[in-house]
């Protein structure tokens, strides 16, 4: 075999090993989590936005807008930490904002995730009281809990293409 041919075989073997190595970590089940995770997180973002927008209006529609969206946030946040199995990060080859730090500093990530869950549960409690000013304060606290996680474990917006 010529030297060039030998190198090609070596290269092909290396690529195969890499693919196997990635596949060993990122299986189909983990990869399949990414798109639904993005959809669910987008739903949560949309729900928090709907609550925030409603609270800015002169008259707040509690029953049709605020309470259903708060419920969405509460329901979804309960499962939040299940959406990040190892292998569902950028190493999967799927376009994702999730940073490898999620799995490298998983204890901290889980701590922040639980804090976000706690703030969202509190949001539901406060919303039940239908006090706009109190809910504004709690929506701010919930957003800050989201931000605390995003600051370290999500790629900055400007580094990525538009999320569709």
């Amino acid at each position, binding site marked *: 075999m010529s030297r060039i041919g030998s190198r090609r075989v070596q290269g092909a073997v290396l690529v195969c090993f890499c693919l196997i190595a990635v596949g060993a970590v990122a299986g189909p089940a983990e990869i399949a989590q990414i798109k639904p995770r993005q959809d669910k997180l*987008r739903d949560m*973002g*949309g729900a*928090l*936005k*709907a609550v*925030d*927008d409603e609270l*800015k*209006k*002169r008259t707040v529609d509690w029953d049709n807008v605020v309470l259903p969206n708060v419920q969405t946030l509460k329901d979804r946040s309960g499962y939040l930490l299940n959406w990040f199995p190892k292998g569902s990060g950028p190493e999967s080859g799927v376009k994702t904002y999730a940073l490898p730090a999620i799995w490298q500093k998983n204890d901290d990530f889980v701590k922040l995730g639980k804090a976000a869950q706690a703030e969202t549960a509190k949001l539901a409690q406060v919303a039940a009281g239908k006090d706009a000013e109190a809910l504004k304060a709690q*929506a*701010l606290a*919930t*957003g*800050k809990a*989201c*931000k605390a996680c*995003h*600051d370290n474990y*999500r790629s*900055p*917006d*400007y580094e990525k*293409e*538009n*999320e569709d």
Partner: protein
Amino acid sequence: MSAVPAVDETASATLKPARLRIWDGPTRVMHWLLVILIGVCWWTGIHNQLEYHLYAGYGILWIVVLRLYWGFVGSSTARFAHFVRGPRHMLDYARTLHRRDTDHSYGHNPLGAVSVLVMLGVVLAVVGLGLFAVDVDGLYSGPLSIFVSFKTGRHLAHMHYTWFEYLLAVIALHLAAVAFYYIYKRQNLVFPMISGSRTVAEPVEEKLRTVPVWRLLLGAAIASAIVWLVIDGVYYFT
């Protein structure tokens, strides 16, 4: 009898360089405030300090609105009518760019006029997109994002970044032009934008025509009202 006074050659030989006033205070302050606030917006955007990013963005909107107003009623060199000319005028000027012996333009030169319009337009586009952009944390979305869906607002946020990159390109071109004038044509454009004037060897005919201060105050009030309407006022109609 001639109306032209006789030239005193002795006096002419000892003529001291004079200061020629070019830019009024408001134009200079708006220019440098815009520089500072664009820098603040850039830094706060990169570091996800969106609370301050919003404040700086509102400041930029205020300046752009005031600058547009000042372009119609401000002092002579700030007015669009003073420096915005047709394409033929621009081409004639562009043909002299390679020459080092051309005179200073009084105010914006014809190509600088394009730079001003493009800069204002792109800044306005970036600010406009930011007003509708949705923050992923739901904390500091643009004040008009209430009128768009989460998905549309996120899309506009990405367009906001893209147009900011265009703005950086326009700023880079502007800085390159300033450097070109300084190095190649020996014309310092920065100092007059700081001091308001430049030194001329001989008195020249042009004179900065300033306007009463109430016009500036009226413009500041109009700009403030528009920014308030965008930030808070729209919610009075919801």
